[in-house]
């Protein structure tokens, strides 16, 4: 496999005590309502179309996808288990190994790399004491390197669970980790003071109010 290792992308499942068909997994009643709503989106006989959203919901509920969760999804949707395995192994966002409470995903592709994502990565590794792909001993943090997250203007950045933390300096990320350790989720977004992705040195375009109607029109019209 050529690309750098994400969380173990093995394409074969081996039963372990923590991950086997008997691992308990059931959708909670509210989540079951969501599952029904999702299934309702698709026509009769095409329940299999709901595989991706229902798997995502299962992952959100459990944190990751044990084999029993995939089997449960197969049962709910009335499709063969293999079809669910095929979908779950195709997408890298479906995590088939346990992750910590906070999944720290650092982008290390070109734009972020040019803005020194390496120092952020080093800072995280030193702070948490783990390497890429590993989880901390207290099962709180898992560190992975991921592909471009689409926040190139605010490079370097990390994604923690569903939040982007952008415009980072090594001190920023250490602060974020401290707050997470104290069980407070810091507000997402850029850490450099800007609101989102506007130019850092002030606006370079759209600096004046828009011209009103009649701008650039011949005087006699």
């Amino acid at each position: 496999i050529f690309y750098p290792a994400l969380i173990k992308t093995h394409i074969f499942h081996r039963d372990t005590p923590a991950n086997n068909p008997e691992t308990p997994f059931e959708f909670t009643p509210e989540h079951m309502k969501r599952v029904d709503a999702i299934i309702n989106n698709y026509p009769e006989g095409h329940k299999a179309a709901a595989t991706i959203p229902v798997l995502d919901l299962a992952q959100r509920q459990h944190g990751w996808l044990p084999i029993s969760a995939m089997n449960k999804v197969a049962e709910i949707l009335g499709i063969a288990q293999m079809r669910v395995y095929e979908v779950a192994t195709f997408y890298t966002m479906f995590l088939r190994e346990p992750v910590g409470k906070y999944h720290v995903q650092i982008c290390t592709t070109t734009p972020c790399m040019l803005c020194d994502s390496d120092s952020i990565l080093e800072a995280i590794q030193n702070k948490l004491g783990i390497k890429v792909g590993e989880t901390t001993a207290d099962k709180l943090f898992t560190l992975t390197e991921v592909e471009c997250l689409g926040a190139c203007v605010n490079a370097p950045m990390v994604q923690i669970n569903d939040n982007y933390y952008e415009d980072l300096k090594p001190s920023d990320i250490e602060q974020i980790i401290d707050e997470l350790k104290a069980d407070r989720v810091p507000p997402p977004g850029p850490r450099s003071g800007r609101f989102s992705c506007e130019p850092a040195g002030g606006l370079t375009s759209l600096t004046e109010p828009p011209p009103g109607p009649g701008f650039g029109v011949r005087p006699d019209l």
Partner: protein
Amino acid sequence: MLRTHSSSLAMSVSSSQGLTSIRASSNMVEVFVDGKPVMVESGTTVLQACEKVGVQIPRFCYHDRLSVAGNCRMCLVEIEKAPKPVAACAMPVMKGWNILTNSEKTRKAREGVMEFLLSNHPLDCPICDQGGECDLQDQSMMFGADRSRFTEGKRAVEDKNIGPLIKTIMTRCIHCTRCVRFASEVAGVEDLGTTGRGNSMQIGTYVEKMFMSELSGNVIDLCPVGALTSKPYAFTARPWETRKTESIDVLDAVGSNIVVSTRGGEVMRILPRLNEDVNEEWISDKTRFAYDGLKRQRLTQPMVKDASGQLVATTWEDVLTRVAGALQGVQGSEVGAVAGGMVDAEALVALKDLLNRLDSDTLCTEEIFPMAGAGTDLRSNYLLNSRITGIEECDFLLLVGTNPRYEAPLFNSRIRKSWLHNELQVAMVGHKVDLSYSYKHLGETTQVLQEIAAGTHPFCKVLVQAKKPVVVLGSSTLQREDGAAIFKAVSTIAQNSRVSSGVEDGWKVLNVLHRVASQVAALDLGYKPGVNAIQKNPPKVLFLLGADAGCITRADLPKDSFIIYQGHHGDVGAVMADVILPGAAYTEKNGTYVNTEGRAQQTRVAVTAPGMAREDWKVLRAISELAGVTLPYDTLAEVRRRLEEVSPNLVRYDDVEEANYFKQAHELSKAVNQSLLAAPLVPPQLTVKDFYMTDPISRASQTMAKCVKAVTEGAAAVDEPSVC
């Protein structure tokens, strides 16, 4: 969704071959293949249009019995004036297209695809079993480039253990997905799939699972490369050094057409032969892998029980004289015979003629068939009248007391094909089993059967709506004491549904599914079904012709009775015999076998029988001469003329004689006065572990034993040599 998606594709795929009566909208379209005009039905693919003209387009993932995948891209051909080459297997033709199958662009496309396929393919040809019959080898020689520019490293994939029958070396896999489609469409077990993507895609079961299907061996034929090969056959022979003999399988009653590959007088492997009417292109695992039982437990020498009760080897003269002597001393009901499940019609007729000349007609088969009512006098009573292909035309199927999945796997695969593509509705009265397709389970008691026959069961409402109903009765239910009553009930159901459906006269509703290969031929020749006659009048001399079910034992016979056993394996029958005559197995004789449809087919000699064993009818002819009642035939042709004399359909090979008189048979069965027992209808083969060892040959097979072990204890429990 598999049903709806593939049904439209399957319709277009099979309609041009005229396989079934699928109603295709035949607007003929004219296309040109390399300038040659050809008229095809609209909806046929470019690949099929080219095949019609005789041009074979190379492909890996396309298979005419599976749904179209279009992922190998080897079938790319140029269409004149089109910007890009098209995948011939998936593109339906348009009017006026000129398909250029050998143009510059087409050739470049093929070379490119072949280069990609070979880039990750290991250099295993010398150690790969598929060498010599490998699609990749053949197509790269014909269509690939003659030089490589590959300097990178290749990927490797770990092997999966999917059972003791299929050897997987997944590094060789080219991801054509034929096995995945076969497993989910034809076999009905959706265990194989494509996990991962891109370079790290793997075909497998993802979890550690065995590919547990009775048709699993067919993926070995399907796989175009050496990724899936036969484990028992591994490293034993190359295809060019084997001799191929066309023959018939006799391990079940379907009569699948096979090719026996032999080398040096030994059976190396068994492959399927194409027969659209019987087995299409598939054979069951028992048929494919039980051949190693042909080399074990064989009776190779004539044997005689000496004074101490031990069987000792002796000469043919000795045994023939003894047997003839015993036969000379008896008349009428003092001599009887029991025929087993794998006996050819020639031996059956020779034995009958022999015993008839001794004034005896006590010739029985081990399998029972109720003689009350019409019994075996009307052929339509004991045949699969609708034929295996009839299942594709029917719209409603009722199974009674049978598990066709393990009793006749190829019949079951035809039912599944119809269920998948033609929306066949299936209902079953009998023990609930996994048939690889969904069906309505009506219950397993005879009560249910009675109610359906009387018209009081709620399901009768569905039954009357069927336009082309078919009822299949398993022969295992007829072995019960109330077999006649069951037959009467089923006959009533069949007759009622025929009347209510308004189907035309030529359509047959009632069918019987047999489980042994020689039953229909024996009944055609006039054997009495079931050993009742022998049990009532125990004979002094009993002739067991391949009879290994143990229906008659020494305990049933008078104290000083003389048992003669003629067969090919030392199984139950040989142990109780006084004299053993070694016969030939199905790969060693020219025999006529009639399958459950009534189709006569012949096996051919692939290897000679081991040791002193001889063909069965020849042994009986020799006995008859020494006993003074010489049979009037000396050659195979003469025996077959005698067969024709008795029942002409026995020598009309590969043809099915229509049987009729259903109404009359039904009238006769109405007179049967037997009541149904309360016992539920449970077929003897319920799960896959009951499938593998059912007759002397498969019981002697080590491969079958490994299968049973793997199924009961898991694939890891089977001892495999480490080189595999």
